[in-house]
């Protein structure tokens, strides 16, 4: 699935090498990794067994540099070829933009090739895709084997959609890059088609008339690459058009939340006041109350390093996420205390714990109203009468 990120000015495409076990998928990736300029390649990551068989996938990002203002990168994956790894193989296909099918040219592997191709189509169908519409290329690897099948025969068997097809001896590097370039061209053209919001199906570039008759009538005979790709040193490569700084171009710092922008109506209702930990200014957001958001149920825990007990109400759409920054000396907001128990509690911070159950019972606010005064007068009068009676009877 192409990801176009205009914020980071990047386009990311996912390419998967598919094929039967031991056909040379990982070898393709290793060759690309060896010969790509230092600044354009990422690490080659393999999740493999002790026997160097791919267990989940191999992965390598290949950065083309900045193209038309967008940093363009191919994410190259391989899949495990063994039949019994189908579940993981299927997972790697998620969001794929282009496939390179690596076939083993050996006559003894023809059934495995066919089975793998069938399996590929099945797995793609589960994601609502098909080789008929998805950009793909086919590489006939191990052409140096004595029992290598004829190219025409393999093309007839393995290339029903007239995709670009290349011969290769991957362990020498031969055919690796023509395959990748052809696939990349197809994927890039496909992006542009989609960008134009055209629903046109993908047309393989080398096939002027796909699906015209039987696969035998395939007009374009696969071309052998011009010459074996020599091992090139990295020095002659031109410097990559790369943004300065780290390869991945993201700013190492982030704006702290000590923004002067007013942030009333905080969603979280308050942040645990923690000692400064390198995240900028410690936040103070007491008593914030946002209807439909998180409400502070126990503001008393504030400033002690313990989290607040929070109750969550979601009857309304979420308000904009913001924090309320306490102003020194500002009176607490008149947050109405929920009557029911808090449904969600913030977890403990450090050794502190939220003691929602220790909340003191509500006491009558004697100073705020005079409704208790008559009671006090009556009580005093009764007490005086009792004392008077006692004194009169005793004395």
């Amino acid at each position: 699935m192409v990801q176009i990120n205009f914020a980071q000015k990047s386009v990311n495409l996912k390419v998967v090498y598919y094929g039967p076990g031991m056909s040379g998928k990982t070898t393709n990736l290793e060759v690309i990794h060896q010969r790509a300029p230092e600044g354009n390649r990422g690490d080659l990551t393999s999740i493999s067994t002790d026997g160097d068989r791919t267990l989940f996938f191999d992965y390598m990002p290949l950065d083309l540099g900045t193209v038309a203002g967008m940093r363009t990168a191919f994410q190259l994956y391989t899949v495990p070829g063994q039949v019994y790894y189908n579940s993981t193989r299927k997972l790697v296909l998620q969001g794929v933009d282009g496939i390179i099918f690596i076939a083993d040219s050996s006559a003894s592997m023809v059934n495995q090739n066919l089975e793998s191709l069938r399996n590929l189509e099945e797995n793609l169908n589960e994601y609502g895709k098909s080789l008929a519409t998805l950009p793909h290329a086919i590489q006939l690897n191990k052409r140096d084997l004595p029992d290598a099948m004829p190219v025409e025969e393999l093309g007839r068997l393995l290339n029903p959609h007239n995709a670009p097809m290349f011969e290769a001896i991957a362990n020498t590097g031969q055919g690796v890059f023509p395959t990748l370039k052809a696939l990349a061209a197809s994927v890039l053209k496909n992006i542009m088609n989609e960008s134009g919001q055209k629903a046109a199906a993908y047309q393989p570039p080398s096939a002027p008339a796909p699906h015209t008759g039987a696969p035998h009538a395939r007009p374009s005979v696969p071309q052998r690459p011009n010459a074996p790709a020599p091992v090139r040193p990295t020095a002659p490569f031109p410097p990559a058009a790369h943004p300065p700084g780290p390869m991945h171009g993201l700013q190492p710092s982030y704006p702290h939340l000590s923004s002067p922008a007013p942030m009333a109506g905080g969603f979280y209702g308050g942040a645990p006041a923690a000692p400064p930990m390198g995240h900028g200014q410690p936040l103070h957001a007491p008593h914030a109350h946002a209807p439909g958001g998180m409400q502070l149920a126990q503001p008393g825990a504030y400033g002690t390093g313990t989290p607040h007990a929070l109750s969550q109400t979601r009857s309304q759409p979420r308000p904009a996420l913001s924090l309320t920054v306490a102003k020194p000396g500002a009176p607490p907001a008149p947050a109405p205390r929920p009557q029911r128990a808090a449904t969600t509690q913030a977890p403990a911070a450090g050794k502190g714990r939220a003691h929602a159950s220790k909340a003191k019972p509500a006491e009558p606010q004697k100073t705020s109203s005079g409704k208790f005064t008559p009671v006090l007068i009556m009580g005093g009068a009764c007490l005086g009468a009792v004392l008077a009676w006692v004194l009169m009877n005793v004395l």
Partner: protein
Amino acid sequence: MSREPMSRDENLRNSRLVFYENDVQRLNAEIDTFLELSKARCALLVDRDGHLVTRRGEPVRTSEETVSALIAGSFAATREMARLLGENEFAILFHQGTRDSIQLQLIGERTLLATLFDGRTNLGMVRFYAQETAGRITDVLHEIHSQNRSADLNADFSSRAEDALDKLF
């Protein structure tokens, strides 16, 4: 294969995401707040296909692209395991290390929030605030998707990318 009409989430999952600058700014703001509250070191928002959407907080020590791919792979594998065990999916994963730990949380249908944290906070704090942030980011992503937007790449982007690849090898 008979398919039911796509739900909103399924629709989101199947279409590619195009992020404009203000989209990412909104996502960044949500993640910044989350980091501040949870005291986590850094957070990566990763597309389920393994593409990094945005990263906030401290930089990752190694390649962010590789970490993103592994996060997506890890989550995909766990989802398959969940299905085999009769669950729809495990929405939260947690990997604990001696110094750093990472929590992965599914956001909507196709985005993952990976939070790296160390001893300055704890799993409970991260999980609590990540849960809230997930809801907010889901809203933003749905809003992004609901807008009919096209990827306005340059008309010659394709040919120039091919040239760049030719120069590379």
